[in-house]
């Protein structure tokens, strides 16, 4: 059970984040940005930074608000509700997650918190078959070679934070987006955003950290981002459900609102239950991650959250289309934007089947260790 003081802080944070996104135009803003072909709005990033959004989970002594992942989850849920395209979760979880753990003195940290800089994190790699593979991207003599994939926010970023292999083990390096020998390919996503595929050929980059600490920080940051992505899906599912509920209350057929038919009512209840279970589970996970230092337990918690959130979001957004009927299949209704965003967020950092597997394996290992 949270302390009532903490609960009150999170409630206030939720209110102000919701006001901020609503004032900016809610989900309508996301549609406009998508139609304009843009990735996200740099002005919005600055505004979010000024409001303290990015720094919620960064400790106070490093210039953040020190409110923990639970607060990050509050922000992520609000981002999900309006399907905002800004890489908020990637920034809080990955970018800041790596910098604050590995090089808290670096000026990028403060800039990123303030929304004055953008920084995309490149850590995954694509193998020959197209699936993810072990890291082979090399860093030697101040230069990068190889490639990285599935980079969120690659389109609008000034710099990349790259995890690469060096002779002494893994390194974290900083490369400018405009650096020589860097080719960025954008892969269009269902929601209008893109994921970057980076190719380095002798690209100059500055080393920020090296050794086992990099691997540790990366695992932790990925766990954080995974749990926050789950929270984003929770907000998204909740809002998609609300939109659908409004729709079935007003849409009339056979001279009655379709929401008066029992088959529709029971489906709506199942979606509602799905949303509530997901919200309770993901919020509990974030609270527990804040109080947990064991990295493998934190990772298992994050997997539990993402597995639940993806299952719920998939069910909710797909049933939402069905309950809207034909108009749900058009681009004119917002509900489709939620489906598309859910597809992208579900695939990013692993879907439910993937995380159930990870969760189960980790549970087995813990069991075997005892």
């Amino acid at each position: 059970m949270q302390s009532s003081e903490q609960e009150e802080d999170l409630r206030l944070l939720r209110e102000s984040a919701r006001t901020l996104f609503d004032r900016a135009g809610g989900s309508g803003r996301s549609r406009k940005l998508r139609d304009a072909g843009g990735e996200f709005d740099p002005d919005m990033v600055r505004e979010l930074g000024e409001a303290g959004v990015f720094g919620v989970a960064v400790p106070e002594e490093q210039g953040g608000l020190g409110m923990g992942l639970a607060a990050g989850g509050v922000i992520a849920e609000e981002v999900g509700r309006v399907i905002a395209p800004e890489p908020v979760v990637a920034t809080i979880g990955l970018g800041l997650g790596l910098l604050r753990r590995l090089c808290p003195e670096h000026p990028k940290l403060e800039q990123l918190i303030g929304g004055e800089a953008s920084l995309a994190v490149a850590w995954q790699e694509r193998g020959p078959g197209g699936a993810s593979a072990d890291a082979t991207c090399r860093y030697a003599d101040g230069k990068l070679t190889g490639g990285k994939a599935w980079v969120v926010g690659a389109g609008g970023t000034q710099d990349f934070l790259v995890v690469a292999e060096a002779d002494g083990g893994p390194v974290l390096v900083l490369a400018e987006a405009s650096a020589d020998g860097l080719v960025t390919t954008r892969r269009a996503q269902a929601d209008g955003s893109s994921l970057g595929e980076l190719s380095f050929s002798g690209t100059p980059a500055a080393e920020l950290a090296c050794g086992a600490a990099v691997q540790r920080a990366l695992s932790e940051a990925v766990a954080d981002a995974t749990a926050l992505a789950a929270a984003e899906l929770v907000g998204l599912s909740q809002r998609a459900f609300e939109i659908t509920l409004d729709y079935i209350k007003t849409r009339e057929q056979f001279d009655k609102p379709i929401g008066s038919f029992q088959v529709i009512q029971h489906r709506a209840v199942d979606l509602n239950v799905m949303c509530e279970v997901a919200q309770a589970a993901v919020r509990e996970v974030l609270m527990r991650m804040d109080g947990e230092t064991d990295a493998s337990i934190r990772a298992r918690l994050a997997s539990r959250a993402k597995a639940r959130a993806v299952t719920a979001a998939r069910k909710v957004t797909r049933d939402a289309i069905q309950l809207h009927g034909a108009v749900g299949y058009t681009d004119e209704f917002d509900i489709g934007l939620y489906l598309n965003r859910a597809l992208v967020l579900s695939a990013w950092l692993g879907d439910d089947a993937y995380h159930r597997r990870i969760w189960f394996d980790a549970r087995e290992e813990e069991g075997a260790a005892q």
Partner: protein
Amino acid sequence: MTDWNAMSDAEFRKEVRGFLEAEYPEELRHLPHRPKFAEIEHWHRKLHTKGWVAPAWPAEYGGMGLNAAKLLIFYEEQQRWGVNRGRDMGVQMVGPLIIKFGTQKQKNYWLPRILSCEDIWCQGYSEPGAGSDLANLRTRAEIDGDDFVINGQKIWTTMAHDATHIFMLVRTDPDAPKKQQGISFVLAPMDQPGVEVRTITTLSGETEFCEVFFDNARTPRENLVGELNKGWTMAKALLSFERIFIGSPSLAQNALGQLESFARGRGAFDDPVFRDRFAQAALDVEDHAALYSRFADQLKRGETLGADVSMLKIWVTECFQRITELMIEAAGPDGGTVGPLQVGNVSVDVLASFYKARPTTIYGGSNEIQRNILSKAVLGLPD
């Protein structure tokens, strides 16, 4: 008199756990069937001596006077240790009703007899034509001098063949404009010529359910609880706490534990498909527990639970069923075998678990009724 509510939650839990682990008879743990009173009488005596028969009743009536938070802990510990509920209809249902709506004379007479189990109660609500549509009940009670004369039939009366008394909803005004009106709550003795009990054998071969036939059975008019024709509202007023209890994670958690040891013994985890389905079930249970705590926290803060608590029951009972279905699956060719199956040093009665899970989606308001409630009261969907 101990003020249990003044203890910290942890202290109280320790106290309850200590007592149960020390005193609860080993042979009664995780009893697969509902016992007759004679089978658990020795345990009831201990509880009675301890003053723990009625955890929710106010201390002045011989209860423990627990607040919602402590009550939840009490039940959690009981379930954790596999403690049988005993013949608790008196304590859970009729006692609270008498405490809330009964006369002083009724309280003085009935409450101590409930605590001592001198009277053993069964609940006469459902009828052949009044299941989910309970207000449709037809059993009549007509006033004749100082008595009610009762005619009709009750069904699904749990353990009626081992009860001395029945508390029932009866129709006292067949001409009331709405069927929810004209229903009264009366108490009646079972041991009389006009009452006949027939047991119903269930799918699992148990005989815990009964039909009870009333043919000019009589009960004194003073056995009316509350006002005449106000029985429906009274009975509904009692259900609030019941609704979180019925949605508690323990049944599913226990079944999951059984499934895991059984499946491990059988090598079912070698199959990746089974692993994923197990992981789904395990996460369904864990995530349900998170939602359950949210409602429990509400109770602990002294708030009243809303209709949304019904979602706990829907989720956990359906999850419980899936878990027991996985047990059958893991049993392979033994999936239809009656009795405990031995794997390593554990024995699991797969069929008993499967059967136990079936009625959970039917009793206490079927899951379809729960969905109706949620769609109207929580989602505000129109008629």
